[in-house]
């Protein structure tokens, strides 16, 4: 005790200066976290406040373990994440490589590339919902005008097409994150190794494969880390476009959790689901971060 008191006295000024920040973080982050974690062990329903004190132990978690709909949504989220991240990476890489070759008007191109990121995801969702609409949507209109099809394609009604449609919206919105980060990597890339590789006998593809791509991998993994967190919590675009429908065919983790929490008002159960879902985010962050560290290990420091 004596030691602690002495320590406090010695560091009183830094402690006093840090205290507000620490207190605010405790209030804003830690308290809600503890509260929500607590509710995941209760039968808390929004419409019955007294249920907040109904401790039910692990029953919410047990239910989730046996809940088929939850695990389907879980699997679908992983699939959605895999498709979106891979396509965004490929498109972003292509875009960055092309923009990197432009010598004139590159700054304008870079700005234009950022446009999709400037819109609210909700609006992007509405816009794609309208475009993919089977009666008034421009996509159907275009396909029919071009004579590619005579029937309206039910983009948001068919189970696979609906999944395809929300993927398109998500990819359209976020490819530029990959493009921007990869472009930054290309700008930072030293020219010498590329020239050395050309003299060493590489054709253009081999230069890309053996020299450029390894250099870009850290940048790609940074984008992957950011985007995996982003997509794992995907909600707005999906909710606006399909609402998890048709018949739950595009239900992702967070549309399911939001429905459980607010439509069914089962906040305790929803919080338990959320804590299980967070494992997914943690896994992907850990996975890509490890990849990033591996890729970075021998680069840099030149």
């Amino acid at each position, binding site marked *: 005790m004596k030691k602690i008191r002495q320590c406090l006295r010695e560091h009183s000024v830094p402690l006093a200066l840090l205290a507000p920040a620490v207190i605010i973080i405790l209030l804003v982050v830690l308290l809600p976290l503890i509260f929500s974690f607590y509710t995941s062990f209760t039968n808390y329903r929004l419409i019955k406040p007294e249920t907040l004190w109904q401790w039910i132990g692990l029953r919410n978690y047990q239910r989730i373990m046996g809940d088929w709909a939850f695990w389907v949504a879980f699997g679908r989220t992983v699939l959605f994440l895999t498709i979106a991240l891979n396509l965004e990476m490929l498109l972003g890489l292509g875009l960055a490589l092309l923009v990197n070759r432009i010598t004139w008007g590159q700054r304008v191109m870079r700005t234009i590339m950022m446009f999709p990121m400037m819109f609210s995801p909700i609006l992007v969702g509405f816009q794609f919902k309208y475009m993919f609409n089977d009666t008034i949507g421009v996509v159907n209109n275009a396909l029919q005008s071009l004579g590619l099809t005579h029937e309206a394609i039910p983009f948001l009604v068919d189970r696979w097409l609906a999944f395809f449609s929300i993927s398109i919206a998500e990819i359209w919105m976020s490819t530029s994150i990959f493009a921007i980060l990869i472009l930054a990597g290309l700008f930072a890339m*030293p020219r*010498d*190794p590329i*020239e*050395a*590789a*050309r*003299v*060493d*006998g*590489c*054709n253009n593809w*081999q230069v890309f494969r*053996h*020299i450029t791509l*390894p*250099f870009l991998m850290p940048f790609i993994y940074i984008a992957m880390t950011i985007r995996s967190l982003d997509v794992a919590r995907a909600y707005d675009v999906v909710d606006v476009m399909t609402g998890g429908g048709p018949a739950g065919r595009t239900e992702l983790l967070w549309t399911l959790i939001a429905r459980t929490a607010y439509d069914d008002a089962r906040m305790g159960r929803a919080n338990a689901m959320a804590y299980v879902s967070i494992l997914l985010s943690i896994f992907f962050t850990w996975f890509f971060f490890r990849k990033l560290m591996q890729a970075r*290990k*021998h*680069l*840099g*420091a*030149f």
Partner: protein
Amino acid sequence: MSSVTISKVKKNYGAIEVLHGIDLKIEDGQFVVLLGPSGCGKSTLLRMLAGLEAITAGDISIGNRIVNDVHPKDRNIAMVFQNYALYAHMTVKENIAFSMRLKKTANSIVDERVKWASEILSLEPYLERYPKELSGGQRQRVAMGRAIVRNPDVFLFDEPLSNLDAKLRVQMRTEIKELHQKLKTTTVYVTHDQIEAMTMADIVVIMRDGVIEQSGKPLDIYDKPANLFVAQFIGSPGMNLLEGEIVLDKKSKIVKSGNLSLPIPQSSKVEVGQKVVYGIRPEHLKPKMNGQGLPAKIKVVEPTGPETHLYLDLDGNEVCSTSRERLEWPVDSDINLSPVLDNVHLFDAKTKLTIDVG
């Protein structure tokens, strides 16, 4: 191994011409150093040889093949870059083996070649390391290893030593020269360091502003510079230069520069009244205490060990004189300088070209 022929080669960047018709013939097995101040076009010429820059006009051939439009990978050349240009994500071994892997060479041959190269360059203990775990000199050796395993027709070096510290530079200089004596591969080496050029080259090519000023054996260039620029550029400390005019003094031609009367060989092809620049290298300007010659005052004494450098005031001109002796003369003392007549250089003041002194 091959000869290299560069004929009437020009290079434009947009409207700006940076190389104005370069002609150069490099014999098989020669070590040629391109030397010049920065911006003279020497690196551009080397990069054109490598195929990293397009040729605007003229022809470059390696062996008997014109390579103007040949991709770098098909020229069978190896290049060592100033910044080493190692592949950071590959180990030393993978760096060295990279070109062979591209050609899908059999593992046994790759191992054998890597072993051979790493022995020559004493890189065996580092084969499994990554470039960032190596020192500057080791990185440069890896870059050389990457070049020699290919058994190329021509080696190209682009200022390979300029990122190294002074001591390492001298050491690597010797290693590169030794390597060349061992492998006898035609080599083109770019540098702005005249000591490197003098010590390593069979042939030195001095460039300025996109033209070749002079090419020849290092000592020939040192003894017989073709013009004022070469005379100034080669040699350290530099040649002493005094502007003056040819006058007759008791029926013999001398150079009158200010109050100085500078003797010249009478066989010099000069006319009375001609404006000239009188040049004498520091080691040919003998300092003497209380002797005959040109009166000068000591400004700075620099003992370098093997030599003593004296910086002097000679009729308002700063000149340098070097001596093998250890001169411990005090600053501000008056001494005399006598130029060695056989080693006097004369340049026409207008054309800047060397005048034949006979």
